[in-house]
C-alpha cells in the first residue's frame, strides 16, 4: 500500500508549511502570530475544561475520518461522510427521542440507529456504483445536500418536536445520554469507542482477509478481480460500512454531546475528515493522532478569534490547504480503474 507512508517526513514538512501560512494569514488580519498561536493553544489545551473540549472535537472528527479512510483504502472516494454523519445523527436523534426504555437498552439501539442511517446513506452511493457504475464522488456530493435538506424538512415539518426551539428533535431522556468520562464536561465514552474502532480497523486492514480484499480492490483492482474478489460487492460493502462508521459518529454526537439531533450538528466534520484521513496517511492509528491535532485546531479557533482577533476561518483555510498539499496520489489510494 503506497499509503504505508513515511509516517514522519511528509507530515512534518507539511505541518511546518501550514504553520507558516497560518502565521502569514494572522499578520494579514493584523494580529501577531505568536499571540494567535498562543490563544489557539490556550483555548485548546489551557486547562482541564479546554482539553476535554478538544477531546470532544477529536471524537467528532475521528469517526468520519475513519469512515473516509475506510472507503479510500478500498479505492472509493467517499466525499459523503458529512451527509452520512447527518443521517446517522438524525436517525439516532429520532430513535432516542422515541425510545422510553432503560439506558442500557436505549443507548445501543440509538447508536445502532445512527450506524444504520449512515450505512443506508453510504449504501445508496454503493448501490449506484456497484449496480449502475455511477460515480460515487458525484453520488456522495449529491447525497450530502439531500441529507441536509431531508433532515431540515423532517425536524421542522412532520416530525417537529413540541419542546424544540430550533431545527432539532426532542431532547433524549437523561438515561439515554452516553456516560461521561469526566464529570462536568461534554466528553463521553464515545472517545473510547472511537479509539477501539481505530484499533480494530488497523487490525482489520493488516491482518484479515476482508481487509486484504478491500486494499486489493483499492490498490490493484484488476489483479483483485482476477484473484476472485468481487469488485462490485466490495464497493457496496465498503461504502455501506464507511457510511455506518460516519453515521455512528453522528449518533455519538447526538447521544454524547447535544443530547438531541440538531441540523447544525456538524460544522463540516465530514469534509475536515478528508484532511484528517490524509494527514493520518489513511492509517487508523495515525488518524487517531491526526484527529487530536485537528481537534486542537477546531477547539482553539474560537479562542484565537476572541483573544487574538484572528478570524476563526483561518483554520478552515489551513485545512483546505492541508488537503491540497497532501492530495498527491502517493498518499491517496490509487483509484480503481473506471472510477
Amino acid at each position, binding site marked *: 500500500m503506497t499509503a504505508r507512508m513515511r509516517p514522519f517526513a511528509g507530515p512534518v514538512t507539511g505541518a511546518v508549511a501550514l504553520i507558516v501560512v497560518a502565521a502569514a494569514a494572522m499578520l*494579514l*488580519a*493584523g494580529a501577531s502570530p505568536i499571540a494567535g498561536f498562543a490563544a489557539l493553544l490556550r483555548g485548546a489545551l489551557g486547562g482541564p475544561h479546554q482539553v476535554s473540549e478538544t477531546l470532544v472535537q477529536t471524537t467528532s472528527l475521528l469517526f468520519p475520518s475513519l469512515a473516509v479512510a475506510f472507503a479510500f483504502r478500498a479505492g472509493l*472516494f467517499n*466525499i459523503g461522510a458529512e451527509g452520512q454523519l447527518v443521517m446517522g445523527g438524525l436517525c439516532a436523534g429520532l430513535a432516542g427521542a422515541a425510545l422510553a426504555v432503560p439506558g442500557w437498552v436505549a443507548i445501543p439501539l440509538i447508536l445502532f440507529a445512527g450506524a444504520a442511517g449512515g450505512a443506508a446513506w453510504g449504501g*445508496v452511493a454503493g448501490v*449506484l*456504483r456497484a*449496480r*449502475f*457504475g*455511477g*460515480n460515487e*464522488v*458525484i*453520488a456522495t*456530493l*449529491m*447525497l450530502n*445536500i*439531500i441529507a441536509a*435538506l*431531508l433532515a*431540515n*424538512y423532517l425536524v421542522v*415539518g412532520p416530525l417537529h418536536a413540541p419542546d424544540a426551539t430550533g431545527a432539532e428533535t426532542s431532547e433524549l431522556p437523561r438515561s439515554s445520554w452516553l456516560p461521561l468520562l469526566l464529570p462536568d464536561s461534554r466528553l463521553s465514552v464515545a472517545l473510547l469507542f472511537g479509539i477501539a474502532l481505530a484499533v480494530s480497523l488497523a487490525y482489520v486492514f493488516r491482518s484479515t482477509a476482508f481487509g486484504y480484499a478491500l486494499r486489493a480492490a483499492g490498490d490493484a483492482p*484488476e489483479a483483485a*478481480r482476477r484473484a476472485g474478489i*468481487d*469488485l*462490485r460487492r466490495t464497493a457496496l460493502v465498503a461504502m455501506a460500512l464507511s457510511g455506518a462508521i460516519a453515521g455512528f459518529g453522528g449518533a455519538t454526537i447526538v447521544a454524547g454531546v447535544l443530547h438531541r439531533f440538531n441540523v447544525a450538528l456538524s460544522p*463540516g466534520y465530514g*469534509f*475536515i475528515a*478528508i*484532511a484528517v484521513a*490524509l494527514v493520518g496517511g489513511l492509517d487508523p492509528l495515525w488518524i487517531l493522532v491526526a484527529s487530536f491535532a485537528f481537534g486542537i485546531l477546531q477547539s482553539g479557533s474560537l479562542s484565537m478569534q476572541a483573544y487574538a482577533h484572528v*478570524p476563526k*476561518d*483561518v*483554520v*478552515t*483555510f*489551513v*485545512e*483546505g*490547504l*492541508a*488537503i*491540497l498539499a497532501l*492530495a*498527491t*496520489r*502517493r498518499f*491517496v489510494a*490509487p*483509484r480503481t*480503474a*473506471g*472510477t
Partner: protein
Amino acid sequence: MDSFAGFVSLSLVKATPLVFAALAGTICERAGILNIALEGALTVGAFAAVAVSFATGSPVLGLFAAVLAGIALCALLGIAATRFGVDQIVAGTGLNLLAAGGTAFGLVVVFGQPGASPEVHALGAGGEKALIVAAFVAAFVLQAVLDRTPWGLRVRACGENPRAVRSAGVDPRRVRVTATVVAGALAGIGGAFLSLGELDIYSDGMTAGRGFIALAAVIFGRWTPLGAAGAALAFGALSALQFVLQRAGVPSELMQALPYLAALAALTGIVGRARAPAADGVPLDERPAHIGRMAKGSVENRGD
C-alpha cells in the same frame, strides 16, 4: 411571481449562475478533469467581485477580478492534477474548504466584519441582463468550439484518451490546464453574477451548493455545453417555481432537493443512457477504463 413573464425572468436570473458553472464543469469534464471545486470557484468569484467593487467603486473591475479569482482557483486544480500528481477529487474538496475559509477570513480583513459585506456598487439591471444573455451565448460558443475547432477536438480527445493526444504530439497536461482556466473564468463570472448582478453584497455561503447543482447539470446535459445549459435553465426554473409551489404547500426542501435527486437518477442511467468521457477524472498517467479492461464484471458504463 404572479405573472408568467415574472416567472420567466426569475427563472433566467436563477439559472444564469448555474449556466456559467455548468459550462465550466462541462469543459473540464470533457478534458478529463472532474471539477469538484466549482462551488469554491463561484465563492471566490462572488467575493472578489464585491471586494474589488468596494475598493475601486467599479463593478466592472469587480467582474474582471471575479474572472481572475475563478481562474486562479480552477487553474490551481488543473496544475496540481496534471503537474504534481495530486488527486483531482481530493484536491477539489480541499479547494472548496480553502475558498470557504479564505473568503470568510477575507470578509473580516477587507470589510472588517464577519458574515456579509456592506452594499457595494453593483452591475445594475443593464449589467445583469447582459450577463444573462452572455451565459446563453457562451453555451452556443462553447458548443461550437468543442465541436468544430482543433482545440475543441484536443479537449475531447483529452477526455477520452489522453495517450492518443500525446501520440499526436500535443501535451495533454497543457490542454487540461487550459480547460480549467476557461472553466475558472466562466465560474468566476457566475460568482460575480450572484454577488454583483443579482445582489450588491457578498455573504458567507451565498453560493449555497450551486457548484454542485452545476455538476448535476453537466450529467443531465450529457456532457455537452448546450445540454448542460439547458439543464441549468431547468434547475433555475425549478428554483423560481419554488416560490410559487411553496404557497401551494409543497415543501421547499423537496423543490431544492430535486436537482440533486435528478442527478442521482441520472447516475443510474435509467433516465436515458449517457456516457461520461472515458478519461473523466482519470489522471494522465493512468489508462481510462475502456482500454484493456473490457472484461465482464468491470464497470462498463459509468454514470459519470
